[in-house]
C-alpha cells in the first residue's frame, strides 16, 4: 500500500513577477509503506519545497498529494491532521526549541494533537528513548543542552507525534562524525522498529547509501530518478552531470573493477566492501 502518492505536483514561487521561479515541475511518484527513501539533489533542486508540500505547509500550484489515499487539500481546514501523519523535521531543527524544559518541548506536538496527559508522557519518554536522550535531560532547559542533544530533542519532538511518514531534512548537517553515525543508526533503528516510511533529505551520499533502500534524485525541479539505492548509484555518470556523486567507496570499487579485479558492482558501504574484498582474497588464497 502506498503511504504517499503524488501526482503532477508543481510549485511556482512569485508567479507573475520578475522573480517567478518553478521550484518543482510536474513531479509524480508513489512511496510504499515501510520504505526508507533518500532524497538527493543539488542545492536549489526543489527538495525542500517538495517535502514541504508533502505535509501541506506549501500548497502546490497544481497537482495532488495523497496521504493514505486521501487527498491532502480536499478539506483545507483539516490540513493540520495531516501534519501529524507526515512528520517533518526541518534543517537545523534545534532553532525551533522554545519551552522551559525538554520534556515540555517534546510534548508540544502530542499536546497539539489533543492527547491525554498519560499518553503524552508515554510518547515523550518513548520518543526520547528512540533518539537516545537520557531521562535526566528531560527536566533541563533546552537551551542548556549541547548542540547534538538539542538536535535530538527537536527530532524527538516530531517522532513523539508518531507520524506514519517521517521526513528529515539534513538531520546530520553540522554534527561531528560520531554524532552523525549514532543519529543515523538511531533513525534506521526507528524505521525498522516501527516499519514506518522515512524520507531522508541529504547531501551526504554516504549517509544515503548506508540507510536507505530507495533513492529519489531531484534535478532543477524535476524528478530525475527514483529507484533502488544500488540502481541509482550505478548511474554515476548521470549523477555527476547533475552536480551529484556516488559514495566514495562505490567509486573505489568501480575503479578496481575497471582494473579487472573480480568484485561485484553496486557496493554502497565500507562494511560491504570489506566483506567482498576479504571474500575475494580468501578465494584467491591470499588470506
Amino acid at each position, binding site marked *: 500500500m502506498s503511504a504517499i502518492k503524488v501526482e503532477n505536483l508543481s510549485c511556482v514561487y512569485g508567479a507573475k513577477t520578475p522573480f517567478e521561479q518553478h521550484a518543482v515541475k510536474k513531479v509524480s511518484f508513489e512511496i510504499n509503506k515501510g520504505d526508507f527513501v533518500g532524497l538527493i539533489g543539488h542545492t536549489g533542486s526543489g527538495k525542500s519545497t517538495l517535502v514541504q508540500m508533502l505535509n501541506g505547509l506549501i500548497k502546490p500550484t497544481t497537482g495532488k498529494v495523497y496521504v493514505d489515499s486521501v487527498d491532502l487539500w480536499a478539506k483545507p481546514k483539516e490540513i*493540520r491532521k495531516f501534519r501529524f501523519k507526515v512528520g517533518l523535521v526541518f534543517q537545523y531543527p534545534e532553532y*525551533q526549541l522554545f519551552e522551559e524544559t525538554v520534556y515540555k518541548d517534546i510534548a*508540544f506536538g502530542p499536546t497539539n494533537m489533543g492527547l491525554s496527559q498519560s499518553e503524552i508522557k508515554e510518547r515523550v519518554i518513548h520518543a526520547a528513548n528512540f533518539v537516545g536522550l537520557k531521562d535526566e535531560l528531560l527536566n533541563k532547559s533546552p537551551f542548556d543542552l549541547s548542540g547534538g542533544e538539542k538536535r535530538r530533542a527537536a527530532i524527538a519532538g516530531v517522532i513523539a507525534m508518531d507520524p506514519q511518514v517521517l521526513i528529515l531534512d539534513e538531520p546530520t548537517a553540522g554534527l561531528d562524525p560520531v554524532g552523525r553515525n549514532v543519529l543515523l543508526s538511531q533513525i534506521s533503528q526507528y524505521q525498522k522498529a516501527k516499519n514506518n516510511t522515512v524520507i531522508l533529505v541529504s547531501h551526504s551520499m554516504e549517509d544515503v547509501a548506508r540507510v536507505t533502500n530507495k533513492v529519489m534524485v531531484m534535478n532543477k525541479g524535476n524528478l530525475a530518478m527514483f529507484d533502488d539505492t544500488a540502481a541509482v548509484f550505478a548511474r554515476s555518470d548521470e549523477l555527476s552531470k547533475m552536480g551529484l556523486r556516488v559514495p566514495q567507496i562505490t567509486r573505489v570499487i568501480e575503479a578496481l573493477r575497471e582494473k579487472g579485479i573480480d568484485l561485484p558492482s553496486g557496493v554502497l558501504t565500507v562494511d560491504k566492501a570489506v566483506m567482498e574484498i576479504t571474500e575475494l582474497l580468501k578465494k584467491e588464497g591470499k588470506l
Partner: protein
Amino acid sequence: MRDIAFGQFYPGHSLLHKLDPRAKIILLVAFIVLVFCTANYAALAVVVASVIGVILLSKVPLRLYFKSLKMIIFIVLITSALNLFYGTGEPLWEFWVFKITLAGINNAVFVGARIISLILISSALTFTTSPNDLTDALERLMKPLNVFHVKVHEIAMMMTIALRFVPLLLEETDKIMSAQKSRGADMESGSLIQRIKALIPVLIPLFVSAFRRAYELAVAMECRCYQGGEGRTRMKSLKLSYRDYVSSAVVVVLIVGVVLCNVLLPHTVR
C-alpha cells in the same frame, strides 16, 4: 510576511536609479515642502503632474505604487472626510451638526492629494535607492553634526545593519513558523488570546536567534578590527554628476512654478 511594499528596493537602471542618493534625499525634502505650499488648484496640478512624471521616470511597475498606497488609503480617506466637514462659509448641504461647504470640499481634496503625493514620491525614493545607498547618503548629509559630537557613522552603521537584518529575520520567522506548524501549532484559528498565545513558540526562538546573530556579527566585526568612523575611507565614494545638477534645476523650476501659481492666482485653501 513578504508583501510589505513600502520601502522596498526595486532594482533597475532608470534615470532615478542613477541619481546620486544625496541629491535624491535633498530633492525629496524640497519636494515635500513644496507639496505643502500649494495654495490653489494650479499649484496642486503642477505638483501632481511632477509626481506622475517621477513615477514614470522611475520605471518601477505601477502595481508596486498601488501596493504602497493601499496601506495608507484609510488614513487618507479619514483625514479627507474630517476636513470635508471643517470648512467655513456658506453650507452647500446640511444635516444635524454636519455641514459641507465649498471650502470643506477644497480642503478635503487638497489634504487627500497632498498625502497621496507624499507617499508616492517617498516610495519613488525607496524603490529606486538601495538601503545601503540610502544610509550612505544620510551619513554624508549628517556629517556636519559631527561638530556637536553626534556619532554620525555609528548611527548610519546601526541603520545599515538593522535594514540588513529585516529580510533575514522575516525569513527566519517564516522558517520557525513552518517548523512549529509541522508540529501541529495552530496559528490560523481561535480567539485573539489563543492566537497571541500561539505566537510564543515563534517569538522565543526568533529572539534567541536574533541575539545569537547579533553576537556573531559583533564578533565577526571585531575580528576584522572594526573600530568605527574615525579615519575610515569608502570603497564607493559618492560623486555628483550632470544628472544630479539637471534634476536639481528641474526641481528649482518646479518651485518657481508653484510660487508663481501661488502669487498670481487667488488662494483656495488657507
